[in-house]
């Protein structure tokens, strides 16, 4: 038993070394989507100390907005080059508006009433889970069948929208980088930088940081908490919307529960990087993506999730606040 197993592990390690670049690039492009989604979890947590479990459905709504926009464009196929980047910007805006908008509505409906009445944070958590289930079922039973003219029982099926002409953007030796992966990684990093600048430099960003640091003092200093909370949900949702556009670019398919596993992974990425920390979300997302790919290279793809969560547990054992810790609060305004 042990000898063949050992031999198998060794060939698998060789497999990883020989295929190091493909696994790394796949890990980064997967991690980029985790990272963008993780921002939503981390920002809401930073400001409200709430895990917004419905964030995965905010992402799902984004993917359907992207799909709807594609239909508006008459479902183009095999788009490539600058046309693809142009189309993607439109799709990202559509996704961001839809996701950001639904995140704001979600906050109004599911969280604000609870906050007003001073409900416990656990009540808000249950409300989040309820909202998540509600949105999933709403899409599976009503929205998808109606929008795509499907019989009701087919709302749970995957919906495709093929539009990308995949090609190798960079090809040096064994190093291949396809256009979609390149766009996903660059796009995610770009959004991160924009968000970082926004939170560091603008008045609204300062308000968000102040609220995260000490809500009561922030109110005394004239910060309108409700406005800040709305902005936080809008920005986090918009990031999920951009992630949805990048996801659709890469996988060209969505489903009513597409956000479920991604949401859990993005939440994991947020915790891994240090929940409440924006840069931590980026680090956590990319690391998680890489761990998953390297792990499945060595142990087999069925162990992908196990490896990811094992790494999470190990990191939290030694750094309970995550890799970068909670610095959204500690940051000096």
């Amino acid at each position: 038993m042990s000898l063949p197993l050992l031999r198998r592990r060794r060939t698998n390690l060789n497999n990883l070394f020989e295929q190091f670049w493909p696994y790394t690039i796949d890990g980064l492009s997967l991690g980029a989507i985790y990272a963008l989604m993780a921002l939503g979890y981390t920002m809401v947590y930073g400001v409200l100390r709430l895990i917004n479990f419905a964030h995965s459905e905010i992402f799902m709504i984004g993917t359907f907005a992207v799909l709807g926009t594609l239909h508006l464009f008459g479902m183009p196929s095999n788009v490539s080059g600058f046309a693809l980047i142009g189309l993607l910007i439109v799709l990202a805006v559509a996704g961001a508006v839809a996701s950001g908008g639904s995140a704001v509505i979600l906050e109004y409906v599911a969280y604000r009433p609870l906050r007003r009445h001073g409900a416990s944070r656990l009540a808000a958590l249950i409300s989040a889970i309820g909202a998540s289930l509600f949105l999933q079922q709403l899409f599976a039973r009503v929205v998808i069948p109606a929008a795509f003219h499907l019989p009701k029982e087919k709302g749970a099926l995957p919906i495709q929208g093929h539009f990308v002409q995949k090609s190798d953007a960079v090809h040096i030796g064994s190093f291949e980088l396809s256009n979609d992966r390149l766009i996903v990684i660059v796009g995610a990093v770009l959004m991160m930088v924009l968000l970082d600048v926004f939170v560091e430099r603008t008045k609204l960003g300062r308000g968000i940081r102040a609220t995260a640091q000490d809500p009561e003092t922030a109110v005394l200093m004239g910060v309108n908490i409700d406005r800040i909370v709305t902005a936080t949900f809008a920005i986090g949702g918009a990031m999920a919307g951009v992630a949805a556009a990048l996801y659709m670019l890469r996988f060209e398919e969505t489903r009513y529960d597409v956000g479920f596993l991604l949401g859990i992974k993005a939440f994991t990425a947020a915790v891994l990087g240090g929940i409440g920390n924006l840069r931590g979300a980026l680090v956590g997302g990319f690391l998680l993506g890489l761990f998953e790919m390297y792990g499945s290279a060595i142990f087999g793809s069925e162990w992908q999730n196990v490896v990811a969560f094992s790494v999470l547990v190990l990191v939290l054992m030694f750094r309970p606040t995550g890799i970068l810790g909670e610095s959204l609060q500690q940051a000096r305004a």
Partner: protein
Amino acid sequence: MNVLGRLGVPPVQMVMEGRLALRSKIMKITGVVAVSAALALGASACGGKSDSSGSGGGGDTVTLGFMGDLTGENSGIVIPPKQAAQLAVDEYNATSPKVKITLKTYDSQGKGEQAVPLVKQAITKDKIVGLIGPAFSGESAQVDPVLEEGKVPSISASATNAALATHGWKYWHRLIGNDNVQGAGIGGFIARQLRAKKVFIIHDASEYGKPLAATVRSTVMKAGATTSVDAIDVQGSDYSSTVNKAKAFAPDAIFFGGYYAQAGKLLKQLREGGVRARFLSGDGSLDKGLAAGAGGTTANGSIIGCPCLIDPNGTAGAASKKFAADYKAKFGADTAIYSAEGYDAATAFIAAIKAGNTTTEKINTFLSTIDMAGVSKKIKFSSAGEPTATDVYVYQVKGAQLPLLGNAKTATVK
């Protein structure tokens, strides 16, 4: 070769959803078997004995039952065999035989808890002499012990779970190859017709996909091929680690054990990753959704195996051609999934009744020795109730269609 396009609301798509449901039910249901067996004991204790052997004896009409999901969300997979059985019975009655047959349908909605009371009613009140069905493996696991207690023979046209044959049931039969037969058939096709030396095996870790992939693997390994195995997560959307492995292995053929929803995505990502090897899958992927998921013409040339014969153009032989024409004339629709098997199941019962057997015991004895030609396969059962024929048919994706390529033992690929 417009096999699936003319079926109206694509029943095959429903079919595979049904299959998803029915297969996921199987394991959950095995625990219930003991309970339902106990219930069945109770039922037969209060008067089952005289009913079971005395039914229909000497009368000029006997009743056959057909059980399956006739109105539920998976009915698309059950209505074709029901109609085919009706066709067989009507053809027989039209010959003015001594004993006529009434076909009574029982709509179980595919649910075991609805099927069990229905089958009790069928045995004690309607005094059926035989049952075609139940259609799904999950409900079969609950209904078959009741039939066994009531000593009523059954033939299923579509329940493929391999474990059903392992209970030692004397009255249970089926006319569809189980998942092991399917795996061996597809594996043989990969090894013989495709002459693949390196086969990359992928499965979805489900109780359907994993053993199917394992049977394909052991079959091609016996034929001298080298294999490599990887699994995907049905919840996940990124299969790039599997793609990288396939690429490194450089296979001649890829087999995927799982359902079309994942198969389409997987195939798309394999092709995008530059893996060009021929893609094969089992009946869980016998659906238009495969081509849709892969996008455009990506899935073209892929081969799907199924123990079922779907042959609306009658290319598989004279019997199949006649059946397809008669079916179309009667119902105005093409033959669809499991229709040939449903017809054969009815034919087996009809042959028994024609030979003068009108009691459940005598029919069951007749079935144990039956040996005749059917539409989908030879009608002959092993002592466990499995069909002795191991025919597996292969279908090749062509655009959005899945035309029949032929029997896996003889079909050739361009």
